[in-house]
C-alpha cells in the first residue's frame, strides 16, 4: 500500500507539475516521507479498486483482506519524477489540490446508484418525519382533517423540551446575578394578565397561606406581617416574556430565601407550588394560576416576593399586594397576586407546562 501511495502521488504531481505555475520549485525528499497527509494522495488505491471490481457482485465494497494482484512494473524510475516535482509543502492554511483518483466505470456507476438510492430514501424519510412532527394546528391549516397527534410525537418533542430544561438547570448558579439597571433604563411594563384583570375587591381580605412546612402547620400571613417582619430589597431587573418582549422594571420586596428561612419547608421539599386563586380566564371566569418553582431558584438572592413596583405599592395590574419576581425565569413564572405557596417533594403541576410550554423555564 505504501508503495502504491508513492506511485499515485507521483502521478498527481505529474498533473500538477504541468498544470500549475512553478513559482518556487523546491525538491522535496523523495521516498515515503514525501507522502505527508496534506499531499494529494489517492485514498483509494488502484489495488483496492481492482479488488472491488473483482468482487463487485459478491460484496460491493472494498475489502482490504483481498490479496492484490501481482504487479511487476509499478516502481517507476525516479529520474522521471524529478523534473515535474512542484513546490510541495505549503503553509497550513493554503489550499491543497483535490485528491484525484482513478475509478473503474463499473465501480463508479455502482457507487453513484448506491448514493442516489440512499439520498432518495433519506429525502422520503425526512419528508415523512417533518410531516409527522408538524403541529396539529399547522396540519389543519394545510387541510389535514385527521388528528395526527401521537404519543411518539409528544414524547419526542417533550424530550427536546426536557433536554433544554436540563441545560437551563445546569446553567443556573445561585451565585450568578442577573444584570441590574439604572432608573434611567426603566422601560414600560404592560399589564399582561392572561385574559382579564381581577376585581381589586380581593385585596382587602388578602392572605398568603404557606403549606408543606417543617412544623406541619399551615401559616397565614397578611401583607403587614410580610413587610414589617422581613427586610425589603430593591432591584431594577429585566422581565423576559416567553413571547419575546421584555421590560426593565424597578421592584422592591422581601427575599423568597428569607421567607424560606423564617418558615422552613419539610426537609424533603424540593419544589414550591406558587398559586394565585384570583386569576381569571379570557372570559372573566375564575381560572386559578399555579406554577412550579424549584427551591434552588427560590433561594436565589434576586428572587423576590415583590410588594412594590416603581417605588409604589403594587397595583392590581401588577399583582397587588404580593407577586413573585424571579428574574432567572421567564415572565410566566412571575406569578401575580400570590395567595398560596405549597412546598412539596414532587414537582407540582404547572399552568403553562400543561399547555405545552416547558416546566423549568430558566433563562
Amino acid at each position, binding site marked *: 500500500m505504501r508503495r502504491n501511495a508513492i*506511485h499515485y502521488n*507521483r502521478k498527481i504531481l505529474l*498533473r*500538477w507539475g*504541468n*498544470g*500549475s505555475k512553478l513559482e518556487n520549485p523546491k525538491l522535496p525528499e523523495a521516498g515515503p516521507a514525501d507522502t505527508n497527509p496534506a499531499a494529494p494522495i489517492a*485514498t483509494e488505491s*488502484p489495488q483496492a*479498486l481492482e479488488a472491488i*471490481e473483482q468482487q463487485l457482485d459478491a460484496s460491493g465494497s472494498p475489502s482490504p483482506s483481498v490479496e492484490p494482484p501481482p*504487479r511487476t*512494473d*509499478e516502481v*517507476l524510475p525516479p529520474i522521471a519524477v524529478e523534473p515535474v516535482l512542484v513546490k510541495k509543502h505549503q503553509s497550513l492554511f*493554503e*489550499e*491543497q*489540490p*483535490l*485528491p*484525484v*483518483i*482513478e*475509478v*473503474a*466505470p463499473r465501480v*463508479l456507476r455502482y457507487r*453513484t*446508484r448506491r*448514493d442516489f438510492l440512499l*439520498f432518495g430514501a433519506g429525502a422520503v424519510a*425526512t419528508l415523512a*418525519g*417533518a410531516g409527522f*412532527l*408538524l*403541529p396539529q*394546528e*399547522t396540519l389543519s*391549516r394545510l387541510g389535514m382533517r385527521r388528528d395526527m397527534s401521537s404519543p411518539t410525537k409528544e414524547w*419526542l418533542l417533550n424530550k*427536546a*423540551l426536557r433536554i433544554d430544561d436540563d441545560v*437551563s438547570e445546569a*446553567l443556573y*448558579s445561585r451565585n450568578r446575578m*442577573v*444584570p441590574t439597571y439604572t432608573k434611567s433604563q426603566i422601560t414600560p411594563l404592560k399589564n399582561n394578565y392572561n385574559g382579564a384583570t381581577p376585581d381589586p375587591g380581593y385585596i382587602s381580605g388578602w392572605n398568603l397561606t404557606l403549606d408543606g412546612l417543617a412544623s406541619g402547620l399551615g401559616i397565614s400571613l397578611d401583607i403587614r406581617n410580610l413587610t414589617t417582619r422581613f427586610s425589603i430589597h430593591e432591584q431594577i431587573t*429585566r422581565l*423576559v*416574556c416567553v*413571547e*419575546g418582549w421584555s421590560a426593565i422594571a424597578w421592584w422592591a420586596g422581601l427575599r423568597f430565601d428569607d421567607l424560606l428561612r423564617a418558615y422552613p419547608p419539610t426537609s424533603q421539599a424540593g419544589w414550591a407550588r406558587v398559586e394565585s386563586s384570583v386569576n381569571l380566564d379570557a372570559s372573566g371566569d375564575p381560572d386559578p394560576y399555579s406554577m412550579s418553582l424549584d427551591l434552588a431558584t427560590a433561594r436565589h438572592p434576586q428572587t423576590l416576593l415583590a410588594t412594590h413596583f416603581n417605588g409604589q405599592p403594587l397595583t392590581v395590574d401588577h399583582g397587588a399586594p404580593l407577586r413573585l419576581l424571579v*428574574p432567572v425565569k421567564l415572565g410566566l413564572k412571575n406569578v401575580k397576586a400570590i395567595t398560596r405557596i405549597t412546598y412539596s417533594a414532587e414537582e407540582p403541576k404547572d399552568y*403553562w407546562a400543561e399547555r*405545552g410550554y*416547558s416546566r423549568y423555564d*430558566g*433563562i
Partner: protein
Amino acid sequence: MGCSTTPRTEAISASTLLEQPGVLVAKRHHLLVRWSHWLSVPILLGLILSGISIYWSSPIYQHKPDPLTGNFDVAADIGIWICAHVPGLHHYSSPPDWIYNHISLGPGILASALRLHWLCAYLFMLNGVVYLAGLVMGAGWRSLLPRRTDLFDALTMFRYYVGVPFAKLIHHKWPHPRFETKYNALQRTAYFSIAVAGFLSVATGWAIHKPMQLHWLAALFGGFDKARVWHFWLMWLFIFFVVPHVILVFDDGWDTLRGMIVGWSTRVKRSQAIANEQ
C-alpha cells in the same frame, strides 16, 4: 447516470496499470460534509418556519398604532398592502393577518412552535459539529478560508454572473473567469459567510434563550432586544443565500449537484489541461 469519462492520455495510461480504462474523479466533499449539507435543509426549514411563528407572538418591528386601524406591526402593514394590491385577495377576511396566516407554521401556536424550534436548534448544533468534523477529516476547510484577493475576485465573479443573461441575449461571448481553486472567490466568500452565519445564529439564539445565565453573550450582541434583531436578520441571510445558491448549482450543471450527493466530480481540469498540451 451521467458519469462522463475523462479522455485518457498517454501519460496517465502509462503510469496506471489497471486493465480496464478508469475514470478520473476528484474527491470534492467528505461524507460528513455531504450529510450535514443535506440535513441542514429540513433543519433550517423547521427553524425558519417555527421561528417566524415565534416571531409573530411579539414582532420586533413595530410603529405607533395607526389611527384608523390601530395596527402597529410592520408585518401586518405588508399583509394589508398585499390584500389591497394582489388580485384575488381583495376580499380577504382580515388583511392585517394575511402575512401571519400564510408565512410560518401559523399564528397563535407559540408552545408548539417553541418545542419544534428547540428540537431543530439542537439538531442544528449537532449538524454543525458534523459539518466541521467533515471539513477537518476531508481537509476541505482550507478551500473555504478567505484569501486576500477574494474581494476583487468575488467582484469579478459577480460581474460575470450579472452579465450572463445579457450576454446570452445578444449572443455575446462572455467567458467564465478562470480560477485554479476548488471554489471561485464568490463561492468561497458565500460558503465561508454562511458557516459564520450559522455560528452567529446559534450564538444569538443562546443569547435570547438564556439572557440571564448567558447575559455576557447577550451583551456581546448589544443586549437582549438587539440580539433578537440579529437573530431575525441572520435568518434572512440564510434565505438570501439559498436562492442564488440553488439557481447557480442548477446553472453550473449536473456534476456539481451530483458532487454533493456522491462526493466526487469528474471535472478533473488539470489533467485535461495536460491532455490538451500533449
